[in-house]
């Protein structure tokens, strides 16, 4: 199982002040406390004062409680949510260039169709495609493309939000 499967990992969603050097503070803290980052995605939030970091941490590598508490001590860290993979929706984007001689291009396009991936660019003997999906689905797609010869691959690291409440409120409740 790889990190992207969600096996042995926890996802931390960290809201930080959108200031210079904050990413270095977070990354530096992981390094000096001996915690390992599996993947990291950074983007501004709808409120321009803040950015959101989605950090996947190997749980075997670090006592998660210490990771969270030490992160929380950073002055620029506003709040931290720990997302259990089972209770959250996770997405990751992969762009990949694969060897695709004209006679086998059709096989690759079959996979693209099955996974509902997107063809981004086509060369004489290569093809570039992208897929957005759960990290495990992205893993599967990458595994299936590998035998054809992956020339270049770039994954964003996952982003996540908690799953929503399914049950409607009881209309009879006081």
């Amino acid at each position: 199982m790889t990190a992207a499967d969600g096996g042995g990992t926890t996802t931390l969603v960290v809201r930080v002040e959108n200031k210079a050097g904050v990413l270095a503070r977070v990354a530096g803290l992981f390094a000096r406390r001996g915690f390992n980052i599996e993947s990291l995605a950074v983007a501004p939030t709808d409120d321009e004062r803040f950015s959101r970091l989605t950090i996947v941490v190997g749980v075997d590598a670090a006592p998660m409680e210490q990771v969270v508490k030490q992160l929380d001590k950073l002055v620029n860290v506003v709040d931290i949510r720990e997302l259990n993979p089972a209770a959250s929706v996770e997405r990751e984007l992969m762009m990949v260039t694969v060897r695709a001689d004209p006679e086998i291009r059709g096989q690759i396009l079959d996979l693209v169709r099955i996974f509902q991936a997107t063809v981004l660019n086509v060369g004489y003997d290569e093809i570039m495609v992208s897929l957005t999906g759960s990290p495990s689905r992205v893993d599967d797609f990458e595994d299936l493309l590998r035998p054809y010869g992956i020339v270049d691959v770039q994954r964003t690291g996952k982003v996540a939000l908690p799953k929503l409440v399914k049950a409607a409120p009881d209309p009879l409740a006081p």
Partner: protein
Amino acid sequence: MNMNGGQALMKALENEGVDILFGLPGGAILPVYDPLIDSSIRHVLVRHEQGAGHMAEGYAHATGRPGVAMVTSGPAATNIVTPLCDAYMDSIPMVVVTGQVPYAAIGTDAFQECDTTGITMSVTKHNYLVTEAADIPQVIHDAFYIATTGRPGPVLVDIPKDIVDPNNPRSAMEWYTPDSHDLPGYLPNQAGDAELIRQAAKLICEAERPVLYTGGGILKSRGAEALLELAEMTGIHVVTTLMNRGGFPDDHPLCLGMPGMHGNYTAVTAMQEADLLIALGARFDDRVTGKVGEFAPLAKIVHVDIDSAELGKVRRPDVAIQGDCRVVIEELVKALKEMGGSEAQPDRNQWRSRISGWQERFPLTYEQSKGDELLKPQYVLEQLRDSTPSDTIVASGVGQHQMWTSQYWKFNHPYTWVNSGGLGTMGFAIPAAIGAKAGRPDRMVWAVDGDGCFQMTAQELVTAATEGFPIKVALINNAYLGMVRQWQEMFYEERYSEVYLTRDVPDYKMWAEALGCVGLRVESPEEVGPAIAQANEINDQPVVVEFRCEAEENVFPMVPAGMSNSDVVVDPSQRDQPR
């Protein structure tokens, strides 16, 4: 009011109540040294930037107010990294202002440029690179707030030259007085959870063998009085860690003194045998716990700390209370009173008699020197302790002399012990003593130093002499890096490697005199008292008293590194005693 960034910096520091600044000017910070002339703040010109940092720390130790240092960029900034790390480890409130190359030059490898905020990120509670003159008042206001609230610590403010240089248009700004903090990620919490405090009180009322394990958080929270009330109401014994010496009076019958690697036998053993440890502002440091898995194996743990990351970091507590030590202790006292106060405490006579048995069998001890042997350092410290006022402030370096001072001094007042605990910074004593004297000019201040430590920061005695800080230095000269020598004796089969410093070079008496101090040399026990008395009389000059001490003296008790506290090695004369 229109002003430039340099003037704004001085005004901002004045507004924070800064009365003294330890520093040394240089290129990038030069423009700030001009408005300094017109400021109410006193500047102390140090001889090395490390000294400025330790002086600020010593000032903070002795007064509880944040110490402030100001130095230039590049090598000055790197020279102050050690004090920053020291203050970070020991939670000392400190604000350090560093000069930086002009903003446009940052990242170009300019002369005396270094990545100061990058370098100090891991040794500060927080740091700032200020990019606009207009940000200076708010950043300084925030820096002092962060340094002094929550778990205190050092904050560094890096200031590019152009925003403080009156000849540069980027330094122009309009003064404003900040009245709030926009720090959405920083919300220090003071009060502990009431239900958890009740649970802690209940555990206390049930415990047969409780011990109050008190750390630096007592002094940081100004909680010594609250601790005294808690201890006296419950009759529970108190151990004071290296960072809390003075936080509970050594003369108090409930005081067991220092625990840990060189703690006294009773403090170490009482914690090992306890059924409840009430850890107040202490962090289960490896020098206290020994082998963690075998530390206080029978004890339930109540852990109170302002820093929630300390709760459960080393030992999983049964009750973890995040909050200010003083506030939580006061609430705990209230909760205990509601449960019946001292009446509700179980009969602990059996426990008390075990403790007094250990105290009788395993007091601190050493063998007095005989014939033409050199001085015993413990004797020197006993004499010094007995011939100075009880509220004397004592600063120490790091090593054997530090442990002997902590062991043999009687700390009966808070904020009288200034030392480098977490980082273990050799050379801390002299600059820290100067800072303490600057903060408490009414007090007698002694630095107890080793010969190894003394050689690291002795130049600051020039600062003491020229700036009018008549500190006194008791130099324990045993001609060795003594603690390392002790480890080589005990754990490396007496194979001594690079620990001998020589006995006579340098000539400490002459060196002291050259530095502007009175220099005295003491070689026999009968000279010790008179030399101390002479030093105590000198108030217009620093004094260095070199005590020529036995090289082979070891610090006992000792829990060898990595061993269980149950395996504490006592003084050779006590090894036949039943434990």
